[in-house]
């Protein structure tokens, strides 16, 4: 187990370097951070050259990358457009997005798996068919459309919740944005667990459990569900990274000052340290979530053993 974890961590290194370099390349090679500092005005060449030297921008790209990564590992992510350090921005933004992601994942897991079990056990019945159609529709409507629609209905028309989230973003205000963020994944989780349950229902061990006279509830929760959850866990694990990155749209609709908001500001103002720093952290979260998923397999399926 320990050796397996170490090997996976080592395998992450090239992927981490590749992803961050790609983002670094896009931000630094395609945009011009110094020109962005001056907005529409043309910068004085001497000043521009000095800023370039201060920011290490006069070096070749790979040297800039190495320099930047060296600073990151010393905890220095650079300065954001408003003079705050990027680490400060992260300290305020990540807890907010983390709360939003937690709300979304909880909704996704609880509602998605419940619906999946319900329709998987009734494969081909009307409940199953209507749930399948419903999930297809949910998948087809883009997040920004459902976001504005639900915000309008619940926040404005019926006034059940606040249409926008306050800067502190407590959990109770994040329920509606969490639903919006979770909705598409929820549909995928429902479909995945439905397929998996419907396949496993015919398995020998389920028939054995029923023949032993176990109560139906126990057969479903202990025998069927545990074995059917593996694909669902894979999806949710990889989805955590996607949710944190994909929260840009949701955060924009509900005016949540989380990771997506800061990233969007960073991109709008062409502030490279903000963009690269946040994306780097997101890539790490994404890779760790994947590792966690692989380790969870062993918990869910005792047949899997890591050398």
């Amino acid at each position, binding site marked *: 187990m320990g050796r397996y974890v170490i090997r996976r961590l080592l395998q992450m290194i090239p992927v981490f370097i590749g992803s961050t370099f790609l983002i670094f390349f896009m931000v630094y090679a395609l945009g011009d951070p110094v020109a962005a500092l001056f907005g529409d005005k043309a910068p004085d060449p001497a000043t521009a050259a000095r800023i370039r030297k201060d920011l290490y921008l006069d070096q070749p790209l790979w040297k800039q990358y190495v320099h930047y990564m060296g600073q990151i590992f010393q905890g220095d992510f650079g300065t954001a457009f408003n003079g705050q350090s990027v680490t400060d921005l992260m300290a305020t933004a990540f807890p907010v997005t983390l709360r939003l992601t937690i709300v979304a994942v909880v909704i996704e897991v609880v509602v998605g798996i419940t619906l999946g079990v319900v329709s998987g056990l009734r494969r081909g019945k009307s409940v199953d068919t209507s749930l399948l159609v419903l999930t297809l529709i949910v998948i087809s409507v883009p997040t920004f459309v459902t976001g504005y629609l639900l915000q309008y209905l619940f926040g404005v028309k019926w006034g059940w919740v606040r249409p926008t989230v306050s800067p502190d973003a407590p959990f109770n205000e994040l329920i509606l944005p969490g639903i919006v963020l979770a909705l*598409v994944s929820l549909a995928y989780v429902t479909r995945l667990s439905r397929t998996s349950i419907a396949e496993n229902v015919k398995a020998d061990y389920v028939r054995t459990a029923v023949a032993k006279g176990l109560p139906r509830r126990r057969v479903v929760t202990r025998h069927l569900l545990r074995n059917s959850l593996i694909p669902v866990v894979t999806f949710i694990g990889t*989805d955590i990274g996607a949710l944190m990155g994909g929260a840009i749209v949701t955060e924009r609709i509900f005016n949540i000052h989380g990771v997506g908001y800061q990233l969007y500001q960073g991109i709008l103002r062409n502030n490279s340290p903000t963009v690269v720093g946040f994306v780097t952290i997101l890539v790490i979260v994404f890779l760790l979530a994947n590792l966690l998923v692989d380790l969870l397999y062993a918990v869910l399926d005792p047949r899997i053993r890591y050398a």
Partner: protein
Amino acid sequence: MPERDEPAYDPLQPGEGEAIAPTGQGGPMDLALDEAESLEKVLGDEPTGPAEKARSLWSDAWHQLRRNPVFIVSSLLILFLVLIAIWPQLIASGDPLHCDLSKSQQGSAPGHPFGYDTQGCDVYTRTVYGARASITVGVCATLGAALLGSALGGLAGFFGHWGDALLSRIADIFFGIPVVLGGLVFLSVVTSTTVWPVVGFIVLLGWPQLARIARGSVITAKQNDYVQAARALGAGNTRLLLRHVAPNAVAPVIVVATIALGTYIALEATLSFLGVGLRPPTVSWGIDISNAASQIRNAPHMLLYPAGALSLTVLAFIMLGDAVRDALDPKLR
């Protein structure tokens, strides 16, 4: 939606596979694959039965598709969308860029069933003309990603060795980048008003998914007896790949590409909504929805029609992909 990418961890990767004790046929890792991916194993060993009347997988699938109402509805819808993407004049006589500010945000009027937007442009005409951008981006991006992905993934799966390992790692790198984020970074520096930067970007981040599918299904297909037999008879790699492996490995790629087409259209709209996708004067549902969103309290019709058209288009392609998968996967029957 499309930011939800396929799992970055590839259970078919040989280097990682050895860490897991093989457990019976296939092993539990198979379950970790997406529904669509599970298809490739079924299709891999699907030679036409010699005993019964020879009907290939394709004619069999076509036979089933013709009876599937989901397929009929979605393909008619797609046919209609493609038609108005090519000739929007067929059903909309107006000019989408002709706007009359005095009619700003007015509701429906005779000859203008969907009303007017903030600029006083006819929402119906703009909704019809918006199909062109979405369909163009969807079709071109899917073709690009499918061709690039299946070529690279297929070759990697067929030849294996270091090329395969390299490709898998490169795919991992692209999987590590959240799609919407990458789009914001990459496209925010582009100033072109054509659809091509968006298409290029979607191909760039979309090919690894299709490469992974193609690789997996080629690996399954090349282990079949008839491939070994052909090799024993002296067939070269090119002939093996084109004549024996590719036809038996292409089905999962088609299924995933069809579903991906729908998600690419939604991705284009999301990027346009965020202001980095298509840009005016291109008529796009994403741009119109973005403009309408701030006015939803005064004029919800401005949002509903383009959003409805967009959702219906995405739904049509996803339904088509679903129907094709059901037809190509004999296990589900």
